[in-house]
């Protein structure tokens, strides 16, 4: 296997591990606030790593740039929605306590 394919596989395993950790954390962590910490590593670490793995495997060219941009979009979208969901949860909890 060429070094490029090895690097792509390593990145893929790392990204997939981050995503699986995020899913596990979402299922396992208790409490409404602690659970939301699981949303960030999927968007900011897992998705870009997988996109990077795919881009490395594709080789230089426009297709690789497209994959990297999709990874970046996932990161930004995931971060923004994490904040939005967190705000909604805080509001709901505050209302439930009243």
């Amino acid at each position: 296997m060429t070094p490029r394919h090895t690097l792509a596989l390593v990145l893929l395993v790392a990204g997939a591990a981050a995503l699986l950790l995020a899913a596990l954390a979402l299922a396992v962590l208790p409490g409404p606030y602690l659970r939301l910490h699981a949303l960030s590593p999927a968007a900011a670490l897992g998705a870009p790593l997988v996109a990077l793995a795919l881009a490395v495997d594709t080789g230089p060219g426009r297709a690789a740039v497209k994959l990297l941009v999709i990874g970046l979009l996932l990161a930004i979208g995931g971060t923004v929605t994490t904040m939005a969901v967190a705000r909604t949860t805080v509001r709901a909890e505050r209302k439930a306590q009243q």
Partner: protein
Amino acid sequence: MGVEMRTMLELLLWWGVLLLLNTVFISSVSPLEMAVGGGVALLGALGAVAVRRASGATPGGPARLARALWAFPWTLLADTGRLALAVASPAHRRGGFRTVRLAPGTGAAWGAALLSSTPGAYAVESRDGGELTVHAMEDQLSSLERALTGAGE
């Protein structure tokens, strides 16, 4: 710079970004594609400028951007480790809200976004004066937080 000049510049910036995105995503680059892309990007840029001005959103100041970007990858990895630890053992699960006071000149928008993309914290509210309400997994400040607030320097 007058307001019109700034609006023109912002329109041009949006147009450029949208056209660039379009060029990256299409399969074959031909003059027809570029023309269509340019036209649609112009419509999109007009809409983007209108929405941004209506929402009153600003990127904020660039103070401490370099330090925050340098601290970001390490904090990301360290916080993912902390999350794994919290998942593995119930004894390590804590967490609470705290107020993060950003250093003056730091944009609240990108500061809160950077902070929220690390698993260790997410921003919930943002008030005037660069104050963020943040829910964090640990009591001690992460290095990104230290970089953004200027604490410990």
